[in-house]
């Protein structure tokens, strides 16, 4: 029986981990992901799950231990955030390059300096080209569901997956969550990766040998191809998910009211709820507004975005990271790239908001939708000179 429980994002992820029964968890978790591993280590200590729990001395070591365990064919999970993910950066590429199906929950949080503990997407955006699948949760239920789905997808795509949930706004928020029976999760993911490595098997193998200019490029092309196949694996994954749990998860993007939209908002993560409400208020005012939530950021769902956004006059990208390149945030840059070449391509206004946990207020969203959209890049809610004058 599905149970309805009040859980924070961290608790929901820890519970998903317990139900997934990983062979190995290695972690040195940093706030705000700390409680995922803290709660999970209690499950281990109480004998509720027989995972080999490896408390290591740094995030770099955490992911390194995960790499070794995954190379031995284990189901492996870890969690981190912010500076911790930055410290893992070197090993991220090794995990994907070796095609290891590690699943990592990232509690999205700002990067130093200046030091800040609150939420934005700077951390995972710094890992966007590391060869990991990246999905962003909308709410606590979604974080729970996507963590279960990620294991299914990682083990079949043979790629590592990051399941991102907004620091504090999801990790520390209590929401009602429908929790599936342990046996249903077990049936969904099985006992172990179906096609894992066998470093500890009978036949000796070498994982990760030297590949010099005569072969390195072929391995990287094969990795790119694996990423290109992920949308198909995700389609199969959400179908299996629906069969096992009766819930529909949009695999790549979630579009609402974009069919006839003049203005379409594009967003990642938990502020999708605020954006959807703002679009609905726009509809009440007589404005044809719609919303596209990007669920899967890597691989980038360019075709799905083109389809959802082609008819709009204006696209407003709302995002919590900056590339500091003069081109705006990473989502805006890639949305523009996806729309490039469309006949009558929409004008894109890239709105950077909520860095370091700054709140996005409904009134700001309403003012944005009522203003003459300028195109270019806007820093919303920043003190000082504005591109947009509040209405």
């Amino acid at each position, binding site marked *: 029986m599905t149970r309805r429980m009040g859980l924070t994002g961290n608790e929901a992820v820890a519970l998903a981990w317990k139900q997934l029964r990983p062979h190995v968890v290695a972690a040195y978790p940093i706030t705000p992901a700390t409680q995922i591993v803290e709660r999970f280590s209690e499950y281990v200590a109480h004998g509720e799950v027989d995972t080999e729990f490896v408390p290591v001395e740094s995030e770099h070591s955490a992911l390194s231990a995960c790499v070794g365990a995954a190379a031995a064919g284990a189901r492996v999970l870890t969690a981190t955030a912010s500076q911790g993910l930055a410290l893992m950066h070197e090993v991220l590429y090794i995990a994907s390059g*070796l095609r290891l199906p590690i699943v990592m929950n990232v509690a999205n949080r700002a990067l130093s300096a200046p030091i800040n503990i609150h939420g934005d997407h700077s951390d995972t955006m710094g890992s966007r080209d590391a060869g990991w699948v990246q999905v962003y949760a909308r709410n606590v239920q979604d974080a729970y569901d996507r963590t279960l789905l990620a294991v299914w997808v990682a083990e079949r795509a043979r790629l590592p997956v990051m399941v991102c949930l907004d620091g504090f706004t999801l990790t520390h928020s209590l929401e009602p969550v429908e929790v599936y029976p342990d046996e249903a999760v077990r049936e969904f993911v099985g006992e172990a990766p179906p096609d894992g490595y066998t470093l500890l098997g009978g036949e*000796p*193998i070498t994982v990760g040998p030297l590949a010099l200019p005569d*072969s390195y490029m072929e391995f990287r092309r094969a990795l790119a191809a694996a990423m290109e196949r992920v949308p198909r694996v995700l389609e199969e994954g959400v179908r299996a998910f629906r069969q096992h749990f009766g819930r529909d998860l949009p695999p790549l993007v979630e579009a609402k009211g974009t069919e006839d939209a003049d203005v379409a908002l594009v967003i990642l993560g938990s502020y999708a709820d605020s954006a959807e409400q703002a679009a609905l208020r726009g509809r009440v005012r007589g404005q044809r507004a719609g919303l596209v939530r990007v669920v899967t950021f890597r691989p980038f769902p360019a075709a799905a975005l083109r389809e959802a956004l082609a008819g709009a006059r204006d696209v407003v990208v709302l995002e919590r990271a900056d590339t500091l390149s003069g081109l705006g945030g990473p989502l805006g840059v890639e949305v523009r790239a996806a729309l490039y070449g469309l006949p009558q391509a929409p004008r894109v206004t890239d709105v950077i908001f909520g860095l370091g946990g700054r709140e996005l207020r409904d009134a700001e969203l309403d003012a944005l939708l009522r203003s003459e959209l300028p195109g270019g890049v806007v820093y919303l809610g920043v003190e000082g000179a504005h591109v947009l004058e509040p209405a």
Partner: protein
Amino acid sequence: MATDWQALDRGPVIPGGSSVAYRTGDWRQERPVLDLQRCVHCMLCWLYCPDSAIRTAGGRVVDIDYDHCKGCGVCAAVCPPRANAIRMVPEGAP
């Protein structure tokens, strides 16, 4: 390597022990020459050789695997002075 990328979907994984087939002996500038008449079979060279290139049988040194010896000279350096059974000679010298 002539492998197409389409054949590499398993990632960089190869059969174990592949270094046996990878001949590193041609890196050598000096070659250790073993004099079995002088060798006392103390096994220090076998212990120290970083390339496992000292071949043994029945607890005794037999010969040197020149396909894998890189000529570092550690064996000659650790050979007991009174045995002095290993000399380094330039490659190409008689």
